[in-house]
């Protein structure tokens, strides 16, 4: 789904796959760290398509998992070669804007945006609508 939406905005297939990877990593982090691997925690995902003058794809993930100080969510030193801890780096490397917030009433909100203008690889698909919003529960 992520790839299809990204392609519709004009992102190349390879970029769409990377965006999907960033979302996958974000979901995994919520499941692993937020819900301590519990399989039944709620995660809400909203996609916002801006296909105006500065096209972009924004993905918002919200959960009811344990809260953490957003300042504590950091990429690790990549020179320290060890298993794990790559998810945040991958998300920040792929997406142009990444913001973690505590939700009122519990849980966290992650907002990630990818700007088409920041990507050299694009496809020349025409864009038909102005703004769409899709919601998926996972």
């Amino acid at each position, binding site marked *: 789904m992520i790839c299809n939406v990204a392609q519709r905005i004009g992102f190349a297939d390879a970029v769409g*796959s*990377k965006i999907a*990877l960033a979302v996958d990593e974000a979901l*995994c982090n919520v*499941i692993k760290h937020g819900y301590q691997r519990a399989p039944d925690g709620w995660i809400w995902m909203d996609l916002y398509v801006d296909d105006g003058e500065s096209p972009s794809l924004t993905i918002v993930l919200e959960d009811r998992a344990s809260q953490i100080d957003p300042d504590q969510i950091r990429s690790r030193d990549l020179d320290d*070669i060890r298993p*794990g801890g*790559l998810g945040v780096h991958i998300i920040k490397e792929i997406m142009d804007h990444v913001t973690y917030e505590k939700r009122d009433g519990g849980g966290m909100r992650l907002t990630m945006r990818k700007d088409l203008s920041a990507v050299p690889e694009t496809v020349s698909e025409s864009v038909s609508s102005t703004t769409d919003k899709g919601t998926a529960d996972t």
Partner: protein
Amino acid sequence: MSGRDDIKVQTEQIDQALVVQPHGEIDLSRSPAFRTYLTQAVKKKPERLIIDLAEVPYMDSSGVATLVEAMQTARRTNAKLVLCGLQDKVRSIFEIARLDMVFTIVGTRDEALQS
């Protein structure tokens, strides 16, 4: 038929090399099973441990973490770990994590046997 958390892995001994070939996506749910296969493979102390990823269309950071752990364990047994057959999406995550220069990565299994 394997379950969502299971993974099909073929192993083959070729001279002093042990080739491990997983099939399917390696993500958060399948990485633990893949880790078990790799742990068993390293314990056999092959001179060369080749992980053929030609049949892996997608891998997330949990799969990469499993391979990093295997590489570090292999080093302790003086085994050389070589990755081959990476598809574009899989190669991409190694590049993003800047691990493409840490692992020995070659194109094909034949190259891995000769590297």
